[in-house]
């Protein structure tokens, strides 16, 4: 079931995990000893600005160095130091441990579940910009219902709370998806426009309904006993769901009539009509599924964090589209894969995590992710061109 595309993505992930495991962080300390009279006695490092005898402590302090006092041979030595984080080779236990890796998968799972729906829409030749907002709306809806349940019945079983939460979030998500699909087909407006509008409307509804307040107080059976359940020393439920959704998505796309029609419409919509494919109906069904998956992602997120607010998932639409595209989907339609989109989400999350683990300023995260997306697509296209030329 894995094509060369997905194997390539797996290789990239393995490479990234390998590199991040072998790169550690070392704090480089530069220090300058100072005498009680506040003059520099000794310059341990080649600090260009520091010369012995100089009256410098206040100067260095102004630059953010800190003052450290240490005992040396019974004498208190005062020095000022700066600490710079650097990268060294060696096993990096900050990255390579169960909790961190499962955490990466957890963060990826919200994006990945939505990306499986998104990739279907992209294969179809469409786009759905409203997934982040559907995620917020279905999240607060599920949270509100569950909070009410927890109030009336604090000891509610997870056999009850989980189906209710998932059903509510999924129903709200699919309702939004039906609206997207029906409007796209019925009004004959490009899905970019419809879902751009939907993006504002759905989040707006969530905001109005909650007054902008975060909703918490969910039943424990839904959170610590459900989506954040502790198994084998980690919280693997979101990761497991991600794997299941990816596999089911891949099977739907390759083994069902609906899936093949999706590829057919995205490849050549006119020919699809001539082949008797009910193009409009397929589009509506796929937008609905995409909305439903956004609802499911919200159900997991709400369960994991124990709360939901109308601000959740803002900007997620771009991450989700990026995951699908990194995973090999073509925005002109006809090409893409559910496994690829899931692996794309993992790659993006690994970049995010790697930047944190390596101690790089997290403000750089977006720059790196942006460049990675463009690079992934360029590499993919070059590969395709070569394949065509070779033929």
């Amino acid at each position, binding site marked *: 079931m894995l094509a060369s595309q997905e194997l390539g993505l797996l290789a990239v992930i393995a490479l990234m995990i390998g590199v991040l495991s072998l790169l550690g962080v070392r704090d480089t300390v530069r220090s300058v000893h100072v005498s009680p009279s506040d003059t520099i006695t000794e310059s341990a490092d080649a600090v260009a600005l520091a010369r012995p005898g100089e009256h410098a402590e206040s100067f260095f302090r102004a630059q953010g160095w800190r003052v450290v006092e240490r005992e040396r041979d019974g004498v208190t030595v005062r020095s000022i130091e700066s600490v710079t984080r650097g990268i060294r080779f060696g096993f990096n236990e900050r990255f390579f441990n169960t909790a961190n890796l499962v955490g990466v998968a957890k963060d990826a799972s919200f994006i990945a579940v939505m990306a499986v729906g998104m990739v279907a829409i992209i294969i179809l030749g469409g786009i759905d910009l409203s997934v982040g907002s559907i995620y917020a709306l279905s999240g607060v809806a599920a949270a509100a219902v569950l909070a009410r349940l927890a109030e009336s019945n604090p000891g509610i079983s997870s056999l009850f709370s989980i189906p209710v939460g998932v059903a509510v979030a999924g129903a709200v998500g699919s309702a939004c998806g039906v609206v997207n699909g029906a409007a796209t087909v019925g009004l004959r407006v490009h899905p970019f426009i419809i879902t751009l509008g939907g993006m504002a409307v759905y989040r707006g509804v969530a905001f109005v309904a909650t007054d902008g307040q975060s909703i918490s107080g969910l039943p424990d059976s839904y959170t610590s006993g459900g989506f954040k359940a502790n198994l084998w020393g980690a919280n693997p439920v979101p990761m497991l769901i991600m794997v299941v959704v990816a596999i089911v998505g891949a099977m739907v796309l390759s083994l069902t*009539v609906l899936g093949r029609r999706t590829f*057919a419409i995205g*490849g*050549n919509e006119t020919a699809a*009509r*001539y082949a008797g*494919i009910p193009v409009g109906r397929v589009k509506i069904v796929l937008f609905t599924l995409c909305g439903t998956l956004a609802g499911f992602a919200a159900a997991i997120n709400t369960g994991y964090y124990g709360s939901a607010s109308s601000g959740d998932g803002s900007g997620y639409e771009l991450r989700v589209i990026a995951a699908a595209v990194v995973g090999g989907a073509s925005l002109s339609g006809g090409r893409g894969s559910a496994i690829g989109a899931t692996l794309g989400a993992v790659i993006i999350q690994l970049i995010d995590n790697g930047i944190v683990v390596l101690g790089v300023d997290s403000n750089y995260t977006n720059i790196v992710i942006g460049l990675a997306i463009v690079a992934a697509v360029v590499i993919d296209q070059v590969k395709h061109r070569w394949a065509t030329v070779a033929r």
Partner: protein
Amino acid sequence: MNQTDPTSSPDPGSGVADAAPDLLVVRHVSKRFGPTQALDDVSVTFRAGEVHALMGENGAGKSTLGKAIAGLHKPDTGEIVIAGTPLRSGSLHEAFLAGVRIVHQELAQCPNLSVAENLCLHDLPRNAFGLVCARSMRRRARRLLEKLDPGIDPDSPLGSLPPGRRQIVQIAAALDERESGGGGGNGGGAQPRIIVFDEPTSSLSVAEADRLLAIIRQLATEGLTCIYVSHRMGEIFQVCDRVTVLRDGRFVATSDLKDIDESTLVSQMIGRTLAPHVKESAALAALAGDGVSPDGATHAAAAAPPALEVRALTSPGKLDNVSIEVRPGEVLGVGGLVGSGRSELLDAIFGLDPLARGSVRAGGVSIDRAGPRGAIRAGVGYVPEDRRLQGLFFQLGIDENIVMPLMPFLARFGIRDGRAERALVRERADRLRVKAASFRSLPGELSGGNQQKLLIARWMDRKTRILLLDEPTRGIDIGTKTEIYRLVREAARDGAAVLLVSSEMPELLALSDRIVVLCEGRLTGELTGERMTQENILRLATQSSAVKAG
């Protein structure tokens, strides 16, 4: 009939252009597109100030010749000489400087821009600040339009004009004596002398067409040579001085319209001998060898109820009250020129035209509201005209290209039956001898003939009782053509009702049991038996009143 050798001096006794000198001489021009010889050693002479028609069937090469003169096509051999100066071939720019302009349907215009902007697009006037100067643009547009149609507002968006006026704007642009943009050479030669009109009236109403023809006449009186490419008989006699007929890319004759009548023109267009043209005869002989001749199957089926019944099918601007019946085992040919509504008829039957009204019954079941899926379920199969645009999925494998319309019938609860699909694909591909490395390979790797076979393979089963074929052999090699002819006859022999659209007359005549002819969306006649001739088809297709259908 008056026939002149184009390279010799003009025929004495012709009218208007009698004394006029030869302005444009086409000498021994040939042009080949892939396997098609579009022009084969064509020589024609055009005089100054005449309206000269180029006529011929679809694919006779008339448009190609017009485009070669305008520099849009580069001839493989031969030369085009304007006023004694040979044209460097294949250069629109050169032709432009020599005073040749072309007006045709697909030529780039920007419907979102104003008329004035369209007229000045090649060289937008700028003011001192480098901004577009609307005033001088409007002035220039007014000057260009004044002679042709002063009623056109230069500020209105081009797209808001009716097609007739849009055509006039194109002519105005062609008449512009602009110094061609960018080039340093300010040629006095940029003065327009020859205008090629490529089917200019095909999308116009009668009144609009009349207005256009009047303008063309006026331009000719002013000394311009107008080359008029069309297949509308009435217009030719209304506006042209002389007519040159092409057939299969070869020159047939140039005649004075005063000295020729419609039936002579028609017989020139189809060739005096009605024998199928050389290329086809091999395929047709092969057909005969297979022992499946058109009349074979019909007798048994004559009594059977019609498999396909179309009653009063009407679609705004496309079809006008078309009624046909096809019996099981019968091949009904649909004749007509490009744009006569043939493909539109098949689209409407298949349920792809939401605006179509009327009744369509397949095997007694009404499918006029059922859409393509309903049509397929009722046993209708459709091989559309343009296999790249309407037929194939280039990102999917050969197997899925064949099985796509049938997938839901093989599936259970929406889940594909892989084994049934594979068996079906193997059986169809074997039967049609599709040559491919693997069923997973993409249709882009196949030849045109094998691509076409994929589309036909979709419907090669006993469930398909009605087969709609639109130009099933366009652009494919002779060997595959023969195979497709065999398949069509076989399908009919097995009891399918076939509706066949083809622009290739010999093919239509050889395969059809009966032929109906469309012209401008209306059924103009039905031909059977002896009366199925190229001549009669062409007459009905050009709506000539010379021969009545009945």
